[in-house]
């Protein structure tokens, strides 16, 4: 892979011996088989100037089109000549340049290497990160002079130490045993998961016993520091799954836990929330493309209202005739669920629809070298907590909450106390449905939005509510978090399928010990 090594030697020289971008170079980088293009990229970069860099950037941004033998750089919808920067008419048959993974990764490396000497500290940091993320041995060796140079020039201590690690990783392949030993020692302080890869690969090919020992020592150290990330990662994913289970169950905790409606359409109410999110997304795309990233904020109340209104309509038309006959509600809501599913199939089609994460929700915070917490998960955790608090407040602290609890316990007598039970019932069911809608809005950010969305969660949501103890909000929270974390720990250990089975068996056994759920209601009031 000589040409790839060439790339990095070449870049070192850029500052002194820049050539103008040539038509041949453009052609070489743009047309032909991937490997040939990579080679052309290397050669061009070797002699490159600002214009070359700009063209590489354009290639990397997928902003290059071709027509016949000609390449165009696209900027703001207009086409420019890569050589002259002159604006050109874009032929109708122009096609995108396709960059397979290999090409893309070389483009990134080339750009990173170019930016390693940028004046902007942030660009340098990003470049170092890109290079550190690469674990291709061939390239590593070639990179050494470049890194050495950057290391020498770097003034920011944080970046300097990162470059030192990069250098050490490369030196691990040095033919000098002393250098290898030194590198191994340096790397043992690394928290970068890539270091592990490098060490493992080196270990496989290392023949010197001393170095082997040093490598092994470094590897155990790195693995030990990574192990933390793994553990925290498992807990985080448990909490994250738990927060989803909680969201999914909260609405049901009202419609079923308080009102006693075995609401088989709960899942479909979530689905409505998710579709409402989809519709809001569509409206933003159409009418407010500039504010697209904030569509989700608008979708939250819309999802709530959409599901709440549907819930209110259902309550008024069907559910209200079934109070005191909980088992009949099972049958009727099952029917409702079938109809709602078919309804969205008729309106939106049987296929899933796409709901995008807003930009601020993609990516994540890097907490440890191997632990990054995705923003969408964090947002959902916070969202679940907020919904929970809001609902807990509403139920236990407000008059509405009191009436809801009173009415659901003894409808005729509540009525004799002057409570408009019909209205309270509608509010309560709408509230539970609205919360299901909120759950649907959240789910649209992590999973499918399709007619089946609800079906996937109905079993889980009932399990959570029941395991927690029917009518016990605190129990619902414990159950959701407990199941989430248990599930994730088991999954890391037994795989997803057995973990799921184990969790179900756990529920069965747990209920034996606590026949009324975690937060069992004790005493006489439980029987009343």
């Amino acid at each position, binding site marked *: 892979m000589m040409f790839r090594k060439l790339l990095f030697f070449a870049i070192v020289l850029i500052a002194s011996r820049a050539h103008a971008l040539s038509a041949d170079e453009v052609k070489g980088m743009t047309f032909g088989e991937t490997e040939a293009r990579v080679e052309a990229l290397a050669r061009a970069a070797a002699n490159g100037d600002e214009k070359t860099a700009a063209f590489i950037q354009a290639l990397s941004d997928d902003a290059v089109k071709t027509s016949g033998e000609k390449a165009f750089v696209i900027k703001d919808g207009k086409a420019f000549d890569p050589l002259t920067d002159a604006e050109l008419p874009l032929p109708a048959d122009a096609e995108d340049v396709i960059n397979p993974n290999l090409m893309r990764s070389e483009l990134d490396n080339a750009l990173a290497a170019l930016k390693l000497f940028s004046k902007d500290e942030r660009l340098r940091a990003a470049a170092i990160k890109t290079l550190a993320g690469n674990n291709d041995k061939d390239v590593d060796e070639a990179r050494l002079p470049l890194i050495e140079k950057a290391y020498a020039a770097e003034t920011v201590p944080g970046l300097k130490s990162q470059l030192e690690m990069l250098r050490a990783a490369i030196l691990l392949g040095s033919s000098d045993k002393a250098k290898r030993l030194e590198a191994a020692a340096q790397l043992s302080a690394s928290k970068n998961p890539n270091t592990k890869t490098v060490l493992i690969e080196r270990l496989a090919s290392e023949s010197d016993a001393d170095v082997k020992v040093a490598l092994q020592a470094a590897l155990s150290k790195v693995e030990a520091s990574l192990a933390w990330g793994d553990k925290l990662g498992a807990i985080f994913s448990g909490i994250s799954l738990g927060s989803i289970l909680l969201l999914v169950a909260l609405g049901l905790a009202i419609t079923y836990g308080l009102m006693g409606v075995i609401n088989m359409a709960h899942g479909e109410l979530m689905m409505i929330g998710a579709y409402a999110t989809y519709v809001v997304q569509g409206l933003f795309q159409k009418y407010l493309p500039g504010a697209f990233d904030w569509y989700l904020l608008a979708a939250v109340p819309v999802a709530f209202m959409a599901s709440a209104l549907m819930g209110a309509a259902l309550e008024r038309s069907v559910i209200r005739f079934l109070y005191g006959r909980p*088992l*009949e509600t*099972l049958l009727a809501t099952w*029917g409702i669920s*079938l109809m709602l599913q078919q309804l969205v199939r008729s309106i939106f089609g049987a296929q899933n629809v796409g709901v995008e994460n807003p930009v601020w929700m993609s990516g994540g915070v890097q907490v440890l070298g191997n632990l990054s917490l995705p923003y969408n998960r964090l947002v959902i955790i916070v969202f679940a907590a907020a919904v929970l608090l809001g609902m807990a407040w509403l139920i236990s602290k407000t008059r509405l909450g009191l009436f809801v609890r009173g009415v659901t316990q003894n409808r005729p007598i509540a009525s004799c106390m002057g409570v408009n039970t019909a209205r309270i019932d509608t509010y309560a069911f709408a509230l539970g449905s609205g919360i299901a809608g909120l759950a649907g809005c959240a789910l649209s950010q992590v999973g499918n939005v399709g007619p089946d969305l609800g079906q996937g969660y109905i079993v889980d949501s009932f399990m959570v509510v029941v395991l927690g103890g029917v009518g016990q909000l605190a129990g619902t929270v414990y159950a959701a978090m407990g199941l989430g974390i248990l599930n994730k720990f088991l999954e890391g250990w037994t795989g997803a399928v057995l973990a799921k089975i184990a969790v179900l068996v756990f529920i069965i056994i747990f209920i034996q010990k606590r*026949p009324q759920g975690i937060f069992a209601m004790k005493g006489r009031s439980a029987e009343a």
Partner: protein
Amino acid sequence: MTMKTPSTPANFVLLPSKGTLLTRSGWSAFITALIAVCALAPVLNLWVPEGNALHMSTYAVALLGKIMCYAICALAMDLIWGYTGILSLGHGVFFALGGYTMGMYLMRQIGRDGNYKSDLPDFMVFLDWKTLPWHWTFSDSFIATLILIVAVPGLVALVFGYFAFRSRIKGVYFSIITQAMTFAAMLLFFRNETGFGGNNGFTDFKRILNIPIATPSMRMLLFVMTGLTLLGFFLFAKWLVGSKFGRVLQAIRDAETRVMFSGYNPLGYKLTIWVISAIMCGVAGALYVPQVGIINPGEMSPANSIEIAIWAAVGGRASLIGPILGAFIVNGAKSWLTVAYPEFWLYFLGALFIGVTLFLPDGVVGLVKKLRQGGEK
């Protein structure tokens, strides 16, 4: 030692007379059904030629056979739910266990006629199994299979029920753990490691008792047997709920504490009816598999178990005949609607469920009763 109360002459108190198993018209309906199943259907299917308006098509035989299996499940559900007030959302497991037991036998009956010409079922061959796993030990014996069809669902129900009822798990808590049970079983059977053919389950049956399975007479035989089983179970259930045992069940449903303070141990009663109900489902599953030609873990999906409860509710709970009707109505409607209105049938089915609950709180049977009462007036 009997109590003496201030003695009042008691002889003029009219105690209700003990009802017979079925009323007069009940018996005649029963016998009609018996004749329809054992004589009419075979004649119409096997002897009346195909073009004839009276011909009963093979498709109809298969469909009715399948629905009768479902009806047995609905009947079983009625015993445990309608009469005892215990809603099981896991009866699909028992159905599937019976079905799988039968399926294993049928797989063994394929012999070396499979794709791989091996003694092992095909799916085992291409998953590199070298020998039959232990739980297939008795699958080549028809007699053992018959025993296992009863024993496996029965034992599973016994163990599960014993622990659950002993811990006094009630109401939705019970329903939910039965749902967990069926869900877990489904996932377990999905796994290829468990040796039940994974997601595909068992198909491509060829023989039963060395007789080819896909012949009209064999099909008819299975149909008749299913019919007889359904009718037999119906009589059995009728007798059961008519006995004091049945009334204790209903008493448990209404006021379990009172039952205990009256000196009955509900554990034994619940367990007995639970196991009986599970066995009925198992038998239904065993009859279902050779007629439908496939058994797979889908039968254990929570939705299937919920559906069983729905048949019972549509027909009318705690009436025995209701759930049977319910199974026929719902499944008949499904079969017809999925063809007649493939894109809209869910609306109709959903509306049916809502309509029944709103307007026929006692199911279809309740409607019939009401109409009859109205007619008498």
